[in-house]
C-alpha cells in the first residue's frame, strides 16, 4: 500500500492505490506533490472518471466544508506523493487570512467552470444523460465513462 516519500513531502501511493474512497467519512484534504491521480464517481453501478489531477492540484476539500462523506474515490495513476492537509490548519488559515480563503475559492470556482464546460460538451455530443447526472464540484478534464 502506501509509504512515505523520499525527499518529497507527504505519503507515497502506488498505481491503483485508493487514497480516499467514495462514501467514507473524511476530515482532511490532500495536495498532490508528485504524480497524478484520477477522481472517480460510482453511479448506478457504473464508474465515471470525473478528472485527472496533476501535481499542485488538491482534492478532498469538500469534507472540510461539509460534514458529509467523500463524494468521490481518488485513485493513484502510477506512483504518486500526496500531502495531507489537516482540517485544523486549513480552517485556522481560512479564518486568519481572507486572501488564503480567496485563493481556495478561486481554484474551486475554476473547477466548477471546467465542470460546466465538460457537461455542456457531453450534452451536445449526446453521449451523456445530463438529466440523470448531478454535477459535483470537480473539474473534469477527462470525463470518460468507465465500466
Amino acid at each position, binding site marked *: 500500500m502506501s509509504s512515505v516519500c523520499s525527499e518529497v*513531502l507527504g505519503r507515497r501511493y502506488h498505481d491503483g492505490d485508493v487514497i480516499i474512497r467514495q462514501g467514507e467519512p473524511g476530515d482532511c484534504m490532500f495536495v498532490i506533490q508528485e504524480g497524478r491521480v484520477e477522481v472517480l464517481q460510482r453511479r448506478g453501478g457504473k464508474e465515471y472518471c470525473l478528472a485527472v489531477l496533476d501535481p499542485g492540484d488538491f482534492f478532498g476539500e469538500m469534507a472540510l466544508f461539509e460534514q458529509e462523506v467523500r463524494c468521490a474515490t481518488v485513485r493513484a495513476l502510477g506512483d504518486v506523493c500526496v500531502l495531507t*492537509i489537516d482540517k485544523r490548519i486549513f480552517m485556522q488559515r481560512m479564518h486568519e*487570512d481572507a486572501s488564503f480563503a480567496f485563493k481556495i475559492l478561486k481554484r474551486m470556482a475554476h473547477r466548477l467552470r471546467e465542470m460546466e464546460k465538460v457537461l455542456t460538451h457531453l450534452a451536445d455530443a449526446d453521449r451523456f444523460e445530463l438529466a440523470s447526472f448531478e454535477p459535483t464540484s470537480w473539474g473534469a478534464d477527462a470525463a470518460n465513462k468507465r465500466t
Partner: protein
Amino acid sequence: MVPTSPPELMLADSSRIGVIGGGPAGSFFAYFLLEMAEAVGVFLEVDIYEPRDFSLSGPGGCNMCGGVVSESLVQALAAEGIQLPASVVQRGIDSYFLHMDVGDVRIETPLHEKRIATVYRGGGPRGTPMSDTQRQGLDGHLLNLAVGRGARLVRSRVDALEWVDGRPRTKAQNGTQQTYDLLVPAVGINSAALKIFSSACLQYHPPKATKTYICEFCFGRDVIKRDLGDSMHVFLLNIPRLEFAALIPKGEFATLCLLGEDIDKALVQAFLHSAVVQQVLPPDWQVPDNFCHCSPKINIGSAVQPFADRVVFVGDCATTRLYKDGIGAAYRTAKAAAKTAIFEGISAEAFRLHYEPICHTIRRDNLLGKVVFGVTKLVQGWERSRRGLLRMLFEEQREGSKRRDMSTVLWDTFTGSAPYGSVLGRTLWPSFWGRFLWDIARANGHRS
C-alpha cells in the same frame, strides 16, 4: 468599504516598492503583493535588493538558520499552491527522537507522513558535494517565485536611506539611487543593513536578540539514513545554559542547533562530548577540525514601531516566533503587510490597524512560549521528572495506545507546528498532569 489611508498613501498603477532583503520574508512579501495587485488590477513595480547569491555553498549564500519548515507552514503553502519541490527538500521528517540521559524514545506522527521539510537556506554548507549542488536552497526557490511573479532582483546591498519629498530614497552599493512609494525592510537581525533604519528618522528599534550556535557535519547520505533516518533528534540534557539542542538530518549533512544562554565553545564541547550525544553520532566519528558553523543572533523580542508612513518591516526585523518556525512567522507577517498595503494603503495608521495585530498575536504567543520552555527546563533539570516523561512517552507510543497528549505537546513544542498558546492549553488539563505525576511516581518507584 473605505480604505484606512488617504488617497495619496494608496498604491496605484506604477507605484514603486523597494524590498530590502531577498530572504523568505522579502520574497513572500513581493510574491503576495504582486499576486494581490494582479487580483485587483493594479500594476506595481517591485525591486528586491539582495546582494547574496543563494546558489553558492558556504556562508556566502547562507541565511544562517536551522533550516526546518514547520508542518503548519508546509500545509499552508501547499494549500495555496506554493509547493516545496524535491530539489528544495533535503529530507522529509516524519518523527522525532527524544534523547535524555535516562533513555531515548521515538515519537511518531499519527499520520506517519513526512510533513516537515529540512532545507538549506543557501546552496548548502561549505564543502557540499557536487551531487548536492544540483539542489536548491529555500531562499533561492522563494526568490525565484517572487521574480516569476514580476519582481525585479537587484543584486546589490542598500547602504543608505534618506527621505525626499516625504518618500524613502535608497542608495545601493552599486551607486544607484531610487525613490520608492513603499519601502519594505526584510533584512533579518544579523544584517548590517539594520542600522540604516535606526538612523533614518524612524521610531523603529530592532528586536532584542541572543546568540545561538549552528553547525553542519558531513556524515554522508548513507550514514545519515542509517543512524539518523527521517527523524529530528531532540536532546533534553541537564547541561547548564543549554535550553534545547536538535540534530536535523539533511542530504549529506546533519545540522546541529543549540539554543540557550551565551552559547560558547565550552558549551558546544560539553554537548558534543556528552555520553547521550556520542551514542547518537555515528560510531568512530570525530568532530572534524574544520566544518561549517556560525553563531547567528535569533530574536528573543520584537521590534518597536515596525512601520511608518511608506515603511513596513517584515520577518525577523519586525517579529518572529520564539526559537521556532521563523520562516512561518516570515510568511504570516509578509502576507499581512502585503494585504494591508494593497487594500488599506501604506500609511502608518493602516499598518497599525491591519498589520500590527498579526505582530501582536505572535508577540503574545511568544509570552506563552516562554512559559512552555520554562516548564520544559524544569522537567529537563530534574532526573525524576525526566524518567516520568520517558515513561509517559513510552506508554503513549505503544501500539494501540489512543492517548498521545505528551507526544503531541512535545512534537508541537519542538517542531513549532502549533502556536505556543495551543501547546500550553493542552497541558492545563488536570488529567494531563495527573498522568504525568503518576508516571513520575511509577518510573521512580520501579527504579528504586
